[in-house]
């Protein structure tokens, strides 16, 4: 197909250039020539392109990957895929290393009817892109089958609860490859040197504040909390976590879904905003966090200018290149508030594989995914510092406590699920107010008013 394509293309080029080459003596022989190749060749090409090429017994599956060539995880997956094809000679896996914009390209591919069997990205993205639009294949059947290198079923080899991330309307669609919580990541040499050892789970807000006070006193030149104010997705962690703590998951969600916006007027939300502003007023955030552009704050953190960051668990990996040797990372869950409704809740999400319902070889796809998410390959992935949610796969040292948190906490999807369910609301109403508030352009009261108005506006539009 490649060859024929190039051929007609060349022919077309030559034909188009003919009129330019005609000299004085010749009378326009190519008068209508240029039109033909452009208009007709594509049509003529079409049947040829659709001719089946592969022999019948061998199946080909196509995986569009969120990775680009050269990335460590891509190199690993590439090798694993090649090993897989040796072991399963009847399955050919064609991988397109499409990079992070894979879903954008998938939009077009679907519209054009291009074969794609597997895609991967973060769970919220894949869910919104293919599961909700009915394009994904439920995987429950395959999760009940035997795993690649265990006697258990495939589903049983995953860490408890992690498969829930891929559930939608009662069926499991998404297969997690690496999973993350959001938590405080701190520089042990700063925090513990000040004589404080944060507890991983269930720290109280008071303890959190007194810890900041103690550590700050011991390190006057260090900012306690780092934040890159240009990333709305990071900024809104603060308010949404505190709002969930105070109002509970349901309270927070109800407020967002309230068509009048009035629910944001509940006292818990103002209190949450005031608690954030209090931290900011005490100067715990690094100076200029409002204008800090990712990854500036993170760099400060690894350089020892910032004591801790609230971040997804990808942080240690993301900063590994800049990290000094022997950089000691600790982590603890978002603090609890005495007597509040939503304590002990943690955000949990994953990068996942989704399978297109249009696949012609679901069994081959499942065989491939079982192989990639086997203990064998999972262990290799984990050695790169990536946390793999499979039982018996070693956890990267910096992230051991992530699983301590998950053991005791109730997991929720990003921003109590709102990020996935009503992304437009989050983008066009919630984040608009939250960014201004977090970056100190609005007072807590103004922020609540903003939430009310923007929510009402948003829902009125729908």
């Amino acid at each position, binding site marked *: 197909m490649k060859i024929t394509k190039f051929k007609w293309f060349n022919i077309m080029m030559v034909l188009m250039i003919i009129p330019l080459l005609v000299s004085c003596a010749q009378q326009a022989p190519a008068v209508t020539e240029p039109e033909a190749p452009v208009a007709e060749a594509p049509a003529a090409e079409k049947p040829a392109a659709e001719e089946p090429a592969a022999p019948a017994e061998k199946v080909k599956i196509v995986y569009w990957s969120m990775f680009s060539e050269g*990335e460590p995880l891509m190199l690993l997956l590439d090798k694993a895929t090649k090993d897989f094809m040796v072991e399963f000679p009847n399955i050919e896996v064609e991988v397109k290393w499409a990079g992070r914009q894979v879903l954008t390209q998938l939009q077009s591919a679907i519209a054009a009817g291009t074969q794609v069997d597997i895609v991967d990205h973060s769970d919220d993205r894949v869910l919104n892109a293919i599961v909700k639009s009915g394009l994904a294949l439920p995987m429950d059947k395959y999760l009940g089958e035997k795993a690649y290198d265990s006697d258990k079923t495939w589903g049983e080899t995953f860490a408890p609860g992690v498969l829930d991330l891929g559930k939608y309307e009662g069926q499991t669609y998404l297969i997690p490859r690496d999973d993350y919580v959001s938590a405080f990541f701190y520089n042990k040499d700063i925090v513990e040197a000040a004589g404080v050892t944060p507890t991983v789970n269930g720290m109280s807000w008071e303890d959190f504040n007194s810890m900041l006070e103690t550590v700050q006193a011991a390190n006057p030149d260090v900012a306690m909390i780092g934040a890159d104010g240009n990333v709305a997705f990071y900024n809104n962690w603060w308010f949404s976590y505190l709002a969930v703590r105070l109002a509970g998951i349901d309270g927070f969600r109800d407020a967002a879904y309230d068509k009048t916006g009035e629910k944001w007027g509940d006292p818990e939300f103002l209190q949450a905003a005031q608690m954030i502003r209090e931290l900011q007023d005490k100067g715990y955030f690094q100076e200029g966090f409002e204008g800090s552009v990712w990854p500036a704050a993170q760099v400060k953190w690894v350089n020892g200018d910032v004591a801790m960051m609230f971040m997804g668990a990808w942080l240690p990996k993301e900063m590994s*290149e800049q990290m000094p040797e022997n950089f000691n990372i600790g982590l603890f869950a978002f603090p609890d508030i005495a007597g509040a409704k939503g304590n002990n809740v943690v955000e949990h999400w994953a990068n996942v594989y989704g399978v297109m319902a249009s696949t012609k070889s679901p069994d081959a796809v499942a065989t491939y995914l079982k192989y990639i998410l086997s203990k064998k390959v999972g262990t290799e992935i984990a050695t790169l510092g990536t946390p793999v949610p499979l039982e018996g796969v070693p956890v990267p040292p910096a992230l051991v406590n992530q699983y301590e948190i998950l053991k005791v906490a109730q997991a929720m999807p990003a921003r109590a699920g709102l990020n996935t369910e009503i992304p437009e609301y989050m983008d066009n109403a919630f984040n608009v107010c939250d960014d201004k508030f977090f970056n100190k352009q609005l007072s807590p009261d103004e922020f609540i008013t903003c939430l009310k108005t923007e929510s009402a506006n948003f829902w009125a539009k729908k």
Partner: protein
Amino acid sequence: MPTQISVKSHRPMSNFRLRNRLGNIPYYIILAIWAIITIVVFVWVIESSFKTNREVFKDPWNLPTAPWTSAIANYTKAWEVSHMQLYFINSILVVIASVFIVVAVSAPAAYVLSRIPFIGNSAVSYYFIAGMGLPFQLILVPLFVMLSKIGLADSLEGLILVYVGVSIPFTVLLLTGFFKTLPVELEDAASVDGCSDFGIFWKVMMPLGAPGLITAAIFNFISIWNEYLLAMLIINSDKLRTLPLGVMNIRYSMQYTADWTALFAAVVIVIIPNFLLYVFLSDRIMSGLTLGVGK
């Protein structure tokens, strides 16, 4: 307007002497400031590609401690691991083919539009020029669907044809303006000599029009070499990426590799060909710039 045979001939300012040479000093200062800013920015980009990741984030003024080791590491990474060498070849292929075709198809069209008063001439001219206002964002998905149907999605050929399509408005505009500045007398002479229309175009207009065509080629070269959005849509195989896609991809993958200095190296790699082209052709670029837009 007075007849100008060659575009190069207009240098009327060269005799224009200022009465007061000393008066130039303030202007030199202003120009120098601007020039220094620009030079510092680019030198700093190059310097950063000679640093390690940790050095980059320390302070803009520190010098690389082990420039060659870092440079080798960064450029190797950008060139080999991130496949910039592949992207480079793809970019060259795409740009040369697109520029060639767009000039080859736009020149005759512009010639007709500038010279032949057929019915609907101005309508067709407007039709072409209207494309300059079309934002690429508008056409992304329909374009991809169409390319897929004709088997050209995710192919350099498809990308080339799209670049040709979107570059035609500017090129036609530029060349129409240019052909209007050429004298009519020679064509008349040629047609008296029995040349066909194609003959006149080929034997007379092409040599005369060469400066305009080269200008059009250079402008298209620059804009296509730098184009990101359409390439992002059409190309999704790693081996077919062009340079801007490669740079953006390194940025995206940084969340997994945190390798900024390799990114600087990649930026330098993207800039170099343009820089060389520019050094050799800047006169051409400069003098040609108004051919399409001037009188």
